[in-house]
């Protein structure tokens, strides 16, 4: 028996009416296959319709065929993985999918429906590559690659397996001869299989699935009556073999309990084979259009105006989007599409003819790697349609709650297109509510919405902005994520709380139980999401953590954040929560930790000085006197009295002087003591000044005493020490802004009877290293001259 003969046999054995067997080999999401399947079921009127889909999805069959179901929809399977249910696989149905048509027609003719593939969990677990992305249960790579496809492409002038499929099969959409069509698909797929290495079939795990499907077919046949089997064409030869050999193996025991599945809304964007998500045919809007055209009343031939309508629709959409297509270009695109179709022997423009036509007519100049027009047309042919499921689909309450909330906030969910929304969060209560919803969905990691412009309350960036701008799109991923969370909560708010709690647990488990900064951020996000009073337990836990925290700087930062939250009347506002109380608790902890300041280790000095400054500023802002200012002043006094590191002491003294609790003279004396004291490293002389400037930079401008102390110090320095101290002085003075530096310079200069401008006029393209080197060289030169008794050469100024 030759190979060609063997293939032809497949075509003939698909239907054995005597046995009651009618196999429909299909390609998933193919409208032409759907057309033939429908004709077949209507004519055969079978007792059973068997569909290649996981057997444990049987509960959804009635729902899929429900009149209120509007594809694209998908069954999302949550398979247990490491104790968690994650969305692991999607089985999508679009309106032009043969499987969908089979389910609807089976219902119409009163046939029973059986799903015959292995359970979803078995398929997910067999998957060889360990990818995190969910598995598409309708993937069909066999159609796109392989020697057979390549050879046929070469012969027909098609560029890939998709064009080849369109050329051979989709062109036959709407034809009455379903027998001939299905036989041809059967032969084509048998040839695909014959040219696929057996090892690959084995590694894909097809054998077990085919054995299972074969057993199911035999079981149905044994039941009597006609049986229609809708199965991916690739499996047909194996299925025929199984049926011929008889010996029904009992289908593998159903694994249950580890898979949960839901019927969800699906979208064209996810259905697009090229999105690499759950594959089928690419650009589903195009095939949807063909299907609608084939089903249009009046039985107009499918192809009569296909090109015209698609090109006009595309041009219209582009004009709306601001990409103008002139009428002559539009005419040329249509002409090219029709002419290409005729040249290639097709009844009307197929997908590739349209794409070619767009290139011919619209691209002026050299074709870029990613040509804009090609991409726009591809997106247009992909479409944004989103399906809907009936209320009875039992989609988890969380999903329904999220959708209901979106509708309440007038957020468009009709399709999968990405939209923008501008929210006036400070003046419009409804907008604030919508903003909270977007924040909540973001907190849930649904990928539903993204804040593009707006105040960032978490990082305190641009908080003065009045508007938020969001972009959002409902997609199967959003729904999938909500389904994952569905087990934990049935409304958006509580789901957010669960997520916050889970995060807190993660922090704790990660040994970061004291990461109160991260916890405060979580708390802020909860507030932005509108959780309000529900955050009470979270806030209490945060307070407890603050009470046990040992780091001054971290507590100061948390105090500051809580303080602003307590005062906020904007989106961060929390009227139902006693944040002020929490603020006071944090303040109390801070006061307590002040007594640790004298024992600050070297590496913690800088952040603590900074924390002292921030706390001082905070208290100055606290005009409502939420906090007892006296406590901090007393605590700072205690630090001054104690034996603290010079910087801390300087900072404490400065704060004390600034609060007029101490005389500036005391600070001057302390500074002078440090400047002139016995130090091991010259830089330590500047340490106290560093503390003063770090905690209260304004003091240097306000207090003549401090300026005098600095001036005395500088004047008294000899050259060598000056050079050594200089970089440290510069570093200390970075606490001042340029304007303050100018002011200070003016004051210092006036002490010496000159003007600062006299120095400022000179600019050198030298940096400070050059200066230091120059000074060092000069010094050595002077020393050398002096050693040689040549000081007189220097003009007497030194030698004198």
């Amino acid at each position: 028996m030759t190979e060609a003969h063997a293939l032809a046999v497949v075509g003939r054995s698909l239907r054995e009416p005597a046995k009651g067997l009618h196999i429909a080999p299909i390609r998933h999401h193919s409208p032409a296959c759907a057309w033939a399947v429908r004709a077949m079921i209507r004519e055969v009127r079978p007792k059973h319709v068997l569909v290649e889909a996981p057997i444990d999805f049987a509960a959804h069959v009635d729902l899929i065929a429900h009149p209120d179901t509007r594809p694209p929809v998908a069954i999302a399977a949550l398979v247990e993985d490491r104790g968690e249910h994650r969305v692991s696989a999607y089985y999508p149905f679009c309106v032009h999918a043969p499987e969908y048509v089979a389910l609807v027609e089976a219902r119409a003719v009163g046939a029973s429906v059986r799903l015959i593939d292995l359970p979803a969990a078995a398929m997910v677990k067999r998957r060889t590559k360990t990818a995190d992305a969910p598995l598409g249960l309708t993937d069909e790579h066999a159609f796109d690659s392989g020697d057979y496809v390549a050879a046929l492409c070469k012969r027909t002038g098609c560029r890939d397996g998709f064009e080849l499929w369109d050329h051979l099969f989709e062109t036959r959409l709407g034809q009455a001869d379903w027998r001939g069509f299905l036989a041809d698909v059967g032969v084509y797929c048998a040839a695909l299989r014959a040219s696929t290495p057996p090892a690959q079939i084995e590694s894909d795990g097809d054998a077990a699935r085919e054995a299972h499907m074969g057993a199911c077919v035999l079981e149905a046949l044994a039941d009597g009556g006609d049986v229609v089997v809708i199965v991916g064409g690739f499996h047909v030869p194996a299925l025929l073999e199984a049926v011929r050999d008889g010996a029904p193996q009992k289908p593998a025991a159903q694994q249950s309990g580890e898979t949960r599945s839901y019927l969800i809304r699906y979208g064209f964007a996810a259905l697009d084979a090229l999105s690499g998500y759950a594959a089928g045919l690419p650009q589903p809007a195009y095939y949807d259009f063909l299907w609608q055209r084939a089903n249009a009343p009046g039985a107009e031939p499918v192809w009569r105006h296909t090109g015209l309508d698609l090109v006009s629709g595309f041009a219209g959409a582009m004009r709306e989007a601001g990409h103008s297509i002139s009428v002559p270009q539009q005419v040329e695109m249509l002409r090219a599409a029709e002419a290409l179709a005729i040249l290639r022997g097709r009844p009307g423009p197929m997908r590739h003819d349209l794409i070619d036509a767009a290139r011919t007519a619209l691209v002026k100049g050299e074709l870029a790697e990613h040509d804009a027009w090609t991409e726009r047309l591809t997106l247009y042919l992909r479409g944004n349609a989103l399906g809907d499921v009936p209320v009875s689909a039992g989609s988890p309450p969380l999903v329904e709650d999220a959708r209901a909330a979106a509708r309440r906030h007038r957020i468009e969910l009709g399709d999968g297109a990405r939209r923008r929304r501008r929210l006036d969060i400070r003046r419009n209560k409804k907008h604030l509510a919508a903003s909270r919803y977007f924040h909540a969905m973001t907190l849930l990691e649904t990928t539903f919405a993204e804040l593009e412009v707006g105040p960032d309350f978490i990082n305190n960036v641009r908080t003065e902005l009045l508007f938020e701008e969001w972009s959002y799109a409902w997609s199967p991923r959003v729904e999938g994520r909500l389904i994952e969370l569905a087990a934990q909560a049935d409304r958006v708010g509580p789901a957010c709380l669960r997520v916050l709690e889970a995060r807190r647990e993660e922090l704790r488990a990660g040994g970061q139980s004291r990461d109160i900064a991260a916890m405060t951020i979580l708390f802020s996000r909860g507030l932005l999401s509108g959780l309000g009073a529900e955050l009470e337990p979270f806030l209490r836990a945060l307070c407890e953590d603050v009470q046990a925290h040992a780091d001054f700087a971290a507590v100061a930062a948390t105090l500051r954040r809580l303080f602003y939250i307590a005062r906020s009347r904007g989106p961060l506002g929390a009227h139902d929560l006693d944040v002020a109380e929490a603020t006071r608790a944090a303040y109390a902890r801070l006061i307590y930790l002040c007594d640790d300041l004298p024992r600050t280790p070297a590496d913690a000095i800088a952040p603590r000085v900074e924390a002292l400054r921030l706390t001082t500023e905070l208290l100055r802002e606290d005009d409502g006197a939420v906090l007892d200012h006296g406590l901090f002043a007393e605590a700072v006094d205690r630090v001054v009295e104690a034996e603290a590191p010079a910087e801390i002491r300087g900072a404490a003294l400065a704060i004390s002087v600034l609060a007029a609790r101490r005389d500036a003279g005391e600070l001057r004396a302390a500074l002078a003591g440090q400047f002139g004291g016995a130090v091991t490293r010259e830089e330590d002389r500047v340490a106290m000044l560093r503390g003063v400037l770090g905690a209260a930079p304004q003091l240097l401008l306000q207090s003549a005493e401090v300026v005098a102390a600095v001036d005395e110090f500088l004047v008294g320095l000899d050259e060598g020490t000056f050079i050594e101290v200089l970089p440290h002085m510069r570093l200390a003075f970075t606490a001042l802004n340029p304007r303050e530096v100018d002011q200070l310079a003016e004051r210092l200069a006036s002490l010496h009877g000159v003007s600062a401008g006299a120095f400022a006029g000179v600019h050198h393209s030298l940096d400070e290293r050059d200066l230091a080197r120059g000074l060092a060289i000069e010094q050595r030169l002077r020393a050398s001259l002096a050693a040689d008794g040549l000081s007189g050469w220097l003009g007497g100024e030194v030698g004198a």
Partner: protein
Amino acid sequence: VVTEVQRAPAERRFAAELEQLASADRDPKPQGWRLSPRAVRRFILGDKATQVSKKFFGDDALVDRCIVSLMGQQGLMLVGEPGTAKSLLSELLAAAISGDSNLVVQGSAGVIEDHLRYGWNYALLLAEGPSERALVPSPVLTGMRHGKVVRVEELTRCAPEVQDAMISLLSERTIAIPELGPGAESRAVPGFNVIATANLRDRGVHEMSSALKRRFNFETVRPIADAAFERELVAKQVAERMADHEIKPSLNEEVLELVVTVFRDLRTGVTSEGASVAQPNSVMSTAEAVNVAHAAVLDAAYLDLGGVSGEHIARQIRGVVFKDDPEDARKFRAYLDHIAKARAKRSKIWSAFHTAAKKELE
């Protein structure tokens, strides 16, 4: 009488195939076309059933689009890097559609509007005054009068005002000849169209006006993507060029592989192993690869009286490709030092290539 020519036009070279295609052509033809669009496609892309050879390699869909463009009111503009067989494609299209690929205007800085419209035989003009006899039609005017495809090579090398003369030719499809009397004009008959080729990136080319761009459908001809394909093509073209020589040294697979690999590496800037390569400014097209292989074959056959080796390729590649750009020589040296040297350790032919090429560079 010498009958041999160096290179006959496509309609003469492939006369038998055109004849065969025409006689078997049952598909509808656009007005003024010698062949149906499908037969044109078969002529260019080959047809196993009728044993018509494949003449243009690469993108089949591109050829479809070109044919379809020429059936309409728009001119066809072929753009792309040098050496991507744009001119060959335009010649083949003209030969198949009009049976005549000789109506060519070669664009250059010296082209004036008369070359696109008409000129005069001045002796006759002085003797007889303006008359049809004294008129010297341009290839464009001839194409319009006889309904043929006209080729304009390197359109962007013409001055912008000369390019703009094409605008009215393409939109009005008529050339007025006022010297022959009021209202005298030649209107294009069906079958007339223009195939222009242009290089958009080369030095010394002029920008095209957008009015002119609107009159053309653009097609970008790319270098051949498939390495095996390119090898096949080089082998075939070298064999064609050697057909008239008495000695026939063969270009074996290894040498072919070497030539094509070197050209592809330098053209694409990345080797098949994924190493990156500095791309020279010189044109590393398939056509240049054929030139190098051809020269190497001649060198081996006539001077060394033996087979082609890596050494011959190395000797030719310098002269043919890296003409006199010191920067390119540097890049080629880097390629030899890093890519070719590593391959030389594993392969004899690469070793010969490497050694000889290094010597050439000195």
